[in-house]
């Protein structure tokens, strides 16, 4: 993994893109992986803010018992749309944005394997977002069936549900094309000498994520198609009177859904595995075991889906199987956490903003992993299912896991994208505010859940009031803290300390051999890697 050098840099003057449209049309028609990566990142941040506004409305309603801010029907729409927007609009596209920007730079490829299709993958997302967000304004409002769209609720909703179904179809098409593009780029576009076991871990995690996407997005498409035909064409997939079964929906959905959560975390693992070695000034501990751990997580993730269904009816053997299989996944996850910590062990550590986020990630994500293990124990989960405990669990893994890793990666690669170092003070402020407010928001939810507060509910019993007030205050703090990120990025684009090609002292890898900001075209001729 070390000493990646190449001798072709500067052999070609940076391309003037004299050809091709300018202005808005440049972005609309572009086939450049960097442009497309940037658009993915901007899109996902916009979706993050819109999903965030929904979350804050939810928290405003839950600030105290009783109904104050929104109607219960609208509240249900908000929880549903918040989940859908965050999962499909914010987290997933953000990671694809990173993949677009970084994978060609990391493996020494001139672009993604299918540059035109790459553009289509991105430009399918705004239409999907229009359908999804537009569904708030149709008669009956947006779907309120929960982001899991369980039947029979989802069979009963109004037109908002149909818009959500088609939005999911379009996002699915986008994800599958994006994933195929990434797989092919990694398998076929590596520079000579960049063999698989030399690839940066981010590429490995994305390769495996892309495989998961290709495997499960079509299953989700099938599930929502069945809902659509049940709704409008008289089929009975989820209707017991016709011989179908609503529980079957849950099986199909979670066959997609559990791999989906790994789709949202594996690239995060990849980003963190790039950052920790840089700021420990040591190679990653246990590179090969990281690769194998990622692969085994991916394979196991197909065998655990029914841990989301312990209370919906399953034979005891089924419960046992899914319980043990789920707990088995914690082993490779543990391997990863161990390796990150072992990388830091006796490293010459420094805590610039990206490292701060990555270290923070290890702490809080691991807590989410532990609560996951607790949920995995069937007899315990029967108490916890559909309570705030589960809400706490998945926000620890998704916000403190995926989102924190995204921020870590953004601060880490901003120099490469903009040519300027991000402002350390602002970055650190963003980190500490997020870290503190995140925990104020979500830690009390564990207690709420253990005490029995159900999730997806606009009103609650009085004894839950204090912790809910706390969570709401934390949520507004967290929401405002994200504006700091906007400031940090805008400032970094506008100016700041000039970034060197190798922007961070300990940073290794091909992406740090090209100038900062990375020229529009890089590695048009494959770099030649030194033998190791």
């Amino acid at each position, binding site marked *: 993994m070390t000493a990646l050098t190449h001798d072709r840099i500067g052999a070609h003057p940076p391309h003037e893109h004299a050809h091709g449209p300018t202005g808005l049309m440049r972005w609309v028609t572009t*086939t450049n992986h960097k442009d497309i990566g940037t658009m993915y990142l901007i899109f996902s941040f916009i979706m993050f803010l819109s999903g965030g506004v929904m979350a804050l409305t939810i928290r405003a309603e839950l600030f105290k018992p009783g109904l104050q801010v929104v109607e219960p029907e609208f509240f249900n729409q908000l929880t549903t749309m918040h989940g859908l927007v965050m999962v499909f609009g914010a987290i997933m596209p953000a990671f694809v944005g990173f993949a677009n920007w970084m994978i060609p730079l990391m493996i020494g490829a001139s672009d993604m394997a299918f540059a035109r299709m790459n553009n289509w993958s991105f430009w399918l997302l705004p239409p999907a977002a229009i359908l999804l967000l537009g569904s708030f304004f149709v008669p009956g409002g947006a779907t309120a069936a929960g982001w899991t769209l369980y039947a029979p609720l989802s069979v009963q909703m109004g037109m908002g549900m149909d818009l959500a179904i088609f939005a999911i179809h379009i996002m699915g098409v986008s994800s599958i094309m994006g994933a195929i593009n990434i797989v092919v780029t990694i398998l076929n576009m590596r520079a000579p000498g960049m063999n698989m076991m030399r690839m940066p871990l981010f590429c490995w995690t994305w390769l495996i994520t892309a495989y998961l996407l290709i495997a499960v997005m079509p299953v989700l498409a099938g599930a929502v198609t069945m809902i659509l035909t049940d709704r409008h064409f008289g089929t*009975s997939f989820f209707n017991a009177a*016709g011989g179908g079964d609503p529980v079957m929906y849950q099986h199909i959905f979670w066959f997609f859904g559990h791999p989906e959560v790994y789709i949202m975390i594996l690239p995060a693992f990849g980003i963190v595995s790039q950052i920790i070695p840089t700021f420990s000034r040591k190679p990653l501990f246990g590179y090969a075991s990281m690769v194998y751990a990622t692969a085994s997580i991916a394979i196991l993730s197909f065998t655990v889906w029914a841990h989301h269904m312990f209370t919906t009816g399953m034979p005891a053997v089924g419960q046992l199987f899914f319980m043990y299989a789920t707990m088995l996944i914690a082993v490779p996850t543990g391997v990863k956490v161990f390796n990150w910590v072992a990388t830091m062990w006796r490293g010459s550590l420094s805590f610039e903003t990206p490292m701060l986020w990555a270290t923070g990630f290890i702490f809080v994500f691991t807590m989410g992993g532990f609560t996951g293990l607790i949920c995995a124990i069937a007899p315990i989960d029967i108490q916890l299912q559909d309570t705030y405990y589960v809400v706490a669990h998945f926000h620890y893994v998704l916000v403190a896991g995926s989102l924190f890793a995204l921020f870590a990666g953004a601060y880490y690669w901003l120099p490469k994208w903009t040519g300027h170092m991000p402002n350390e003070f602002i970055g650190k402020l963003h980190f500490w505010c997020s870290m503190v407010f995140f925990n104020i928001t979500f830690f009390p939810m564990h207690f709420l859940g253990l005490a029995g507060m159900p999730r997806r509910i606009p009103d609650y019993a009085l004894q839950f009031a204090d912790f809910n007030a706390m969570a709401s205050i934390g949520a507004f703090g967290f929401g405002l803290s994200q504006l700091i990120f906007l400031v940090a990025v805008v400032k970094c684009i506008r100016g700041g300390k000039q970034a060197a090609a190798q922007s961070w002292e300990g940073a290794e890898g091909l992406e740090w051999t090209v100038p900062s900001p990375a020229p529009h075209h890089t590695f048009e001729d494959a770099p030649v890697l030194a033998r190791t």
Partner: protein
Amino acid sequence: MSETFERYFVPQPSKFPILGAAALLLFGSGAAMWVNKVGAGPWIFFCGIAILIYMLFGWFGQVVRESEGGLYGRQVGKSFRWSMGWFIFSEVMFFAAFFGALFYVRVLALPALSTGENEALLWQGFSGAWPSSGPRVADAFTPMGAWGIPAINTLILLSSGATLTWAHYGLLKGKRSQLKLGLLVTILLGAIFLSLQAYEYTHAYAELNLRLDSGIYGSTFYLLTGFHGLHVTVGAIMLTVMLFRSIAGHFTPEHHFGFEAAAWYWHFVDVVWLFLFVVVYWL
């Protein structure tokens, strides 16, 4: 410069993706309006389809020109092969969802509905035996037998796989007329398959009272065979394009990925049919 160092082809900026995005926006919103009986729905929907067709023609046309213009090196060819393989894998998983549903209702849902408390309290006398339209869908129907049209269709599709391979041999050996004839016969067999399938559907509706809303049997039967039929249609269109390209003199024995992709797709559709024949019609 050796082969491996030849530059990878990166296309120029293109207007087709954004057209495709607009098409799917119209397609999705139009369909959502249509199923909710909003007047403009079908119009918007078909606008979307029209733009999509225009886009596909333009885009694939450009790809063909680039390919024939020799812009694609060996490495690009490899990318295409990988991507087609992964695309077919995604299609396999799409069908897996529906096969999974069929398996689930037959092995788990129906037995559960017809035993224990469900049988005692809810659906008395419901046997749960396959084929079933469930305990409460009133109209009786006759299930589709396996040994009439479906068996003939199996033979047709299997022979179409053989004729396609024969065409491929023709291409490899430079026998262009064998290539064209093989493709033509394959497409005709596909068309016969589809017509028989259409006839089977009308027969099912008219005489067997087997409808899309005939409970779970109708649901799984029509969605599985319907999506398969859609894929046969797409495959036949792909092969037709390949036939026209062959007539126009495209493809060489070394360089004919478009043909191969269409052939892989056709074989995939074949294999899906074999599973369909066994679990939907026969067992």
